[in-house]
Structure formats: C-alpha cells, structure tokens
C-alpha cells in the first residue's frame, strides 16, 4: 500500500546513483531521464493517528539524484521566483556534486531558516513554478524538488556549528517584537551587523506561528527550537511574556529604555468569523484557538495537558487554506471519527498548497466543495449539533480572477457535527493601534510601511502579517530582512 517507504526509496536511489556516477558525462537528456524522487512519507492510515512528521525527508542518494535533475540553466528563473532570492541553481549544483556542506553554506548566505523554509514554503508557486524542467515536461510537479533538497541539506547539519560571522559590537540596541519568522530573520541580520538584539514575545515560548500555528506533523517543534537556539548562540537575547503596547509602550522603549530601533513582527490578528447565527455556540472554534490549544498547549497529550479540547467526533472545518488543512488534519489526529472540510468554491480555487490538500485527502478528510454554511445548529445547552449549509455553483470571474461562487436557492442541507472550526483568515490586531499614538494604520488596521519597512514613526519598522494580513513564512522572513537592512543603515548613519 505504502509506496513511499523511506528504505525502499533510498535503495532504488542508491542503485540509480551508482549507474549515474558510472557514466563519465551527462547530457540534458540524461538529466531529464532521472525519475523525480518521491518524498518518503508515513502511510496515511498510520500517520492520521500520530503527531509525528508526515515526511521523513530525502536520503543522501535521493537528494543527490534529484539535484542532478537540474539543468543548471543560465537564466536560473527559479531564483527570481524566490522571495529572498536564494541562489538556488548554485546550491542545487553543489548538492548534485555531493558537496552538501558547500550547498548549505550557499543557502545560509541568504536564508536563515532553511529547515523551516524547506518544509513550509509554497515552492510550487515560487521557485519550482519557474523551473525549466517543469516547463519542458509541461508539468509543474515535475520541476526539480528544490524545497526537498533544501530541507535535506538543512536537516543533515548537526546543531552547534560555528556561529555566523559577526561584526564587532556597536553598542546600538534593537528590539524585535514577536519571535515568528519575520522577527527571527530580522534579528539574525541586525545581530550580524554587530548590534545588540532583544526579541520579545507575548508567549512563554519562542517561534510565533511556527510554534502555535503550524502543527508538529508538518513542522516539528524541535526544528524551530534549533533556530531559536542558533540565534541565542550568536548573542540574541529573548524575553518571554512581553506584550508590546501593554507590558511596555513602543515609544517608551525608544525614549526611555534605550532602544535605537524597533521591528514589529507581531503577526496577524483577530480571526474572522462567518457572522452567521449560532457562531457563539459551544464547539465553534476559530482555527487559531483550536490549533493553539493543540500545538502550543499540547492539548493532544490529553493526560498531561491542562488545556482541554473537548472530545470531538464529527467535525466541520470551514475554509480552503493551509490553516484549514492543518485544523482538519489535527482534528483527525485528536481522534475525530469524521472530518469534513467545507469550501464554497472548488478545489482548483483553494489557496492551500496542493501537497497539503493531497495529504489531507489521503488521511481521510472529506471534501465538500461548493458549499457554504448558513447557520450553526445547537441544543438547549448551547452545544453544537449540526451545520446547515447551502450548495453553490461557480459564476462569473470576480476581481481576483477567481470565479465567484453563487448560492443555489433552496439547496439547504444539514450536516450533523459536534464541532465547527472556522479557518477563513484573520483581521488585524487593535492592540498597537490602541497604545501607539502616531503609528499609521490602513483601513484594514494593518501598519502602513514604505518599501524599506519603515513605519510612520522614525526608528520603528514593521513587517510580515501585521502589514500584509495573512501571508507566508517566507514572505515574513523576506520582510524581516528588508527591515533589518534599513535598520542597519539607520544605525550606521547615526
């Protein structure tokens, strides 16, 4: 049943690699004849009952074979597709020669979190979408698996390697608010320039959305902890239980606490709700709450964890993004008997990564496309008992180019569920607006920045979801680095 067994895949790759290495020279035809290397995965019927990572990662032979599928084309369009402009062709080239250390060195000049990006970047929309190999085959999924190679390289590095080269101490102090991807990336670049960096987080643990949002089976917590540890090793300080704006006002940090600059990377804010009747019934969760309870507070370890999640049998998840997939798959692992994902368009319009949709389907999540809930139904004690939905059909394309779903009148039907998880995105967080006079926000409540991530207050920078609404880990990292460059420039000029 499971054709993605790690041992079998490795044995096949080792055999192929021997033949490959026996040939003195390789043509592009040879390269294109190498079969794309599948990712070893836990079998769906097993992994839906555990929190362990779904994919165990390439073996060395697989990584080297996959890297040899790259044609090393002179235009390297993959690099253009990368938000942080990683020299992809070069590190893949090094990996193809078996120079894994050299390959990782190339990545690390540009990216600080390769183990994380290799796992959670939407490569199929970025680097791999532009890959020449995928174009030649007219199949994007035949592109060189850049993300898997990146992950392999990052994972094989042992912890405690030599710290990145640091500039001499400048005595300048920078506060980073939030320890998610934007904050960590910004911190690393600012610290490397010799500045004193302190990261503040509202939680008692560090990693932000990579900790409380993305589940263990997709991004193991130890990977995030390693990245945090790496920053500690180069002298970055971490302060937990600190809510900027409330524990301390941003302006006080600049004017009284001696910080020369502040980067705000506090992430997305309050979850959106559907605004349908019954949303305040017991058993209706925002995905943020559901995932935080499970991931950060470890509610999945029911015996030890003090934070409860109710016993859930039949669950409806509303939404079609990665967060919806994470929630649906977490629900399965928490022991749900039936998980139904409800999305008002079709699978083609789903914003979730194809791989996540496929994994969810394999694990047994039911997909009800072209449906939207009308109301949540509850019993006299206020507990959810069902969800009334309407069927939809696709109409004309809307402003975003996607065909707008249109409700079919009279098509109501009821789905018996005891839990409803809402994963339809986040709004902004009003906290900094309430507590930071002079900081400019747009109509959506997001912080306004310029091209260099500067806000309306000199010395305060911002990036990631707090300026964009929900985006990706790599986008947030990219903005963290843009802000870091601007901060380093400001501090050099002072």
């Amino acid at each position: 049943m499971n054709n993605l067994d790690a041992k079998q895949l490795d044995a096949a790759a080792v055999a192929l690699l021997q033949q490959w290495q026996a040939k003195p020279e390789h043509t592009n035809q040879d390269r294109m004849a190498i079969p794309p290397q599948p990712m070893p995965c836990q079998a769906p019927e097993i992994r839906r009952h555990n929190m362990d990572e779904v994919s165990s990662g390439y073996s060395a032979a697989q990584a080297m074979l996959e890297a040899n599928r790259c044609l090393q084309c002179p235009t390297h369009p993959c690099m253009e597709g990368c938000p942080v402009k990683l020299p992809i062709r070069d590190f893949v080239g090094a990996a193809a020669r078996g120079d894994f250390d050299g390959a990782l060195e190339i990545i690390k000049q540009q990216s600080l979190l390769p183990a994380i990006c290799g796992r959670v970047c939407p490569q199929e929309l970025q680097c791999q979408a532009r890959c020449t190999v995928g174009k030649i085959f007219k199949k994007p999924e035949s592109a060189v698996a850049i993300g898997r190679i990146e992950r392999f390289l990052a994972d094989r590095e042992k912890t405690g390697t030599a710290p990145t080269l640091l500039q001499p101490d400048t005595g300048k102090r920078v506060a980073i608010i939030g320890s998610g991807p934007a904050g960590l990336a910004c911190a690393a670049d600012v610290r490397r320039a010799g500045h004193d960096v302190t990261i503040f987080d509202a939680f008692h643990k560090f990693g932000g959305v990579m900790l409380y949002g993305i589940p263990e089976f997709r991004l193991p917590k130890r990977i995030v902890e390693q990245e945090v540890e790496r920053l500690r090793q180069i002298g970055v300080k971490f302060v937990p239980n600190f809510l900027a704006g409330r524990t301390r006002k941003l302006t006080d940090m600049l004017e009284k606490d001696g910080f020369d600059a502040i980067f705000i990377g506090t992430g997305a804010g309050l979850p959106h709700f559907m605004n349908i009747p019954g949303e305040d019934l017991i058993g209706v969760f925002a995905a943020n709450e559901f995932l935080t309870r499970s991931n950060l507070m470890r509610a999945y370890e029911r015996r030890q964890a003090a934070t409860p999640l109710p016993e859930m049998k039949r669950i409806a998840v509303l939404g079609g993004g990665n967060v919806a997939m994470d929630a649906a798959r977490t629900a399965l692992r928490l022991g749900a008997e039936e998980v139904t994902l409800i999305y008002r368009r079709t699978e083609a319009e789903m914003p979730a990564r194809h791989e996540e949709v496929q994994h969810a389907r394999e694990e047994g999540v039911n997909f009800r496309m072209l449906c939207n809930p009308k109301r949540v139904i509850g019993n006299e004690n206020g507990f959810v008992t069902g969800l009334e939905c309407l069927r939809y059909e696709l109409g004309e394309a809307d402003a975003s180019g996607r065909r707008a779903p249109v409700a079919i009148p009279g098509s109501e039907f009821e789905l018996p569920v005891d839990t409803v998880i809402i994963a339809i995105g986040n709004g902004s967080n009003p906290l900094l607006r309430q507590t930071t006079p002079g900081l400019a926000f747009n109509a959506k409540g997001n912080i306004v920045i310029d091209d260099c991530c500067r806000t309306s207050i000199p010395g305060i920078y911002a990036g990631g979801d707090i300026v964009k609404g929900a985006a990706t880990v790599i986008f947030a990292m990219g903005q963290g680095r843009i802000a870091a460059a601007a901060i380093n420039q400001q501090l050099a000029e002072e």
Partner: protein
Amino acid sequence: MSGDDYTVLQRQQLSENVFRLKIHAPSVAVERRPGQFVLVAVDADYGERIPLTIADADPQAGTIDLVFQKVGLTTSLMAELPVGSHLAAVLGPLGCPTHITPRRHVVCVGGGIGVAPMHPIAKAFHEAGSKVSVIVGARSRELVILEPELRAFADEFILCTDDGSAGRKALVTEPLKEICEREEHPDLVVAIGPPVMMKFCTAVVEPFADIDILVSLNTIMVDGTGMCGGCRVRIGNEIRFVCVDGPEFDGRLVDWDSMLKRLQAYRPIERRKLEDHICRMEAAADAREKTQQ
C-alpha cells in the same frame, strides 16, 4: 521585562477557597492600571493560561497582588504554591484600563471574588473626586474580602450576604435598586462579579436612562493578546474580544445568555482534571503517611 521572575512573595488565605498571592513582576506592576488583568500559567509545557484580575500593585516594590478562587486545576495548583516558588508565566497588564474620569456619583458593586478587581477601580474613582458607594456581596461572612480596604475610602458601604451572617440578608441588586431610585440618581454603576450577578445588576439599571453601567467580563482565554478568538462575546450584536476590546463593556449591550452558556464549555472536562489532581494528591499523601509509619 528582565527581572520579572514571578516569585511568590506572600501567600494569604482569605477564606476557605479564596487566596491572595503577592507576585514579583516589576514590569507589570509599573504599567498596570485599574481594570486590567494578567494571564497566568503554572507549568510552561502543559499548563493552561488563565486570566486573573490584578487586585493591587506596588510599582516601587515591583509586585502585583492576585486574588483568586480555587475552582479549576490551575487555581488549585496556585493555591498550593509555597512562598519562594515561581509561576511559569505572567503576561500583562492586559486589556483596556478603566476609563477613569470624575463622575458625580459612582456605585461600585462587587460580588464574591469580583470584589478584588472592583477595589482598585472604586479607589481610582474616589481619587478622581467622585462620590463612591460600594456594595459588596458574598454568600456568607467568611467569604467577604477586602472590607476594611474599601471602608477606608468609600462614602457609603453596604454589605450583603446570602445567609445574613453579615450585613444585610440580601442580594446586591436590592441595595443597588434602592440607590438608583433615590431622588438624585448615581450616574455610573460598575458591577464586577459572577456573570449572573452582572446580568441582574444590568437589569436593575436598565430602566434608568441616565445611569451608565459598566461590567468586567472574565471569559475563557488562551493567548490573551488578540489572536485566538476564544474570548469572543456578543456586544450589541457585534463580535467583540474581551482580551483586546474589553474586559469592560457597557452592560446594556452584552448578550448575557450566550456568554453564560459559553462559560460552561469546559466544566465537565475541568471537573475531571481537578478530580484527577485531587486523587493524585491523596495518593501522594497516603504514600507519605505509609513511609512515616
């Protein structure tokens, strides 16, 4: 910021199930204002995060006082914390501070443990030059807290107990109604206590269009920073979040019935966890006894 080690400096049992802890948390102590709260966890890996109101703070000493009632697992563990031990996390001060402006006459109603967060608010209105009437309600004499502190400044102090063991044998709504019906109406009522009490205080004030009513909601929270959406309440038909929009709301706009139901969500699970904990404590005590014999 640094230096906040959340050490338990003092521990006081106020009544059978109510405790007061003095915690070392200088950055919270400096910034906190009346009406604000903190999130507390007793265990970094497996602990839950619960909201507790700040009863008092001393910015010079860098301490905050938390008054809480033993109801669930975390509050039971907190009640057992010895002086010198640490909480795993204290995040705060959270929520919007009470908007303190001089009012003509403020009636502050505190029920049970709600007297603790009511105290700094009443004091702040007094210091702002308002006439302050205080109504304190408790089940019985032993459960009355902070009486001397409140009497020290209140222009009027009314104590009610359910069983009549101290003060009037009445619910707090009775004297509240009398004050509202006086010839000169108060212009603000602040009610903090069990949700049912706040709901009925609102009902008393409802007919008096010239009296504002402010209530402080204590819902279930996870992060307390405007991320999880667990603390949502319906305020005048809109979804609002207690952690960042509250904790204080216009009592007239609160959808009390929906909120009361949501507070019951985890009762059965919480009871099980607490029973588990008590079982383990008893087993440990038995084991200790056996080794002593």
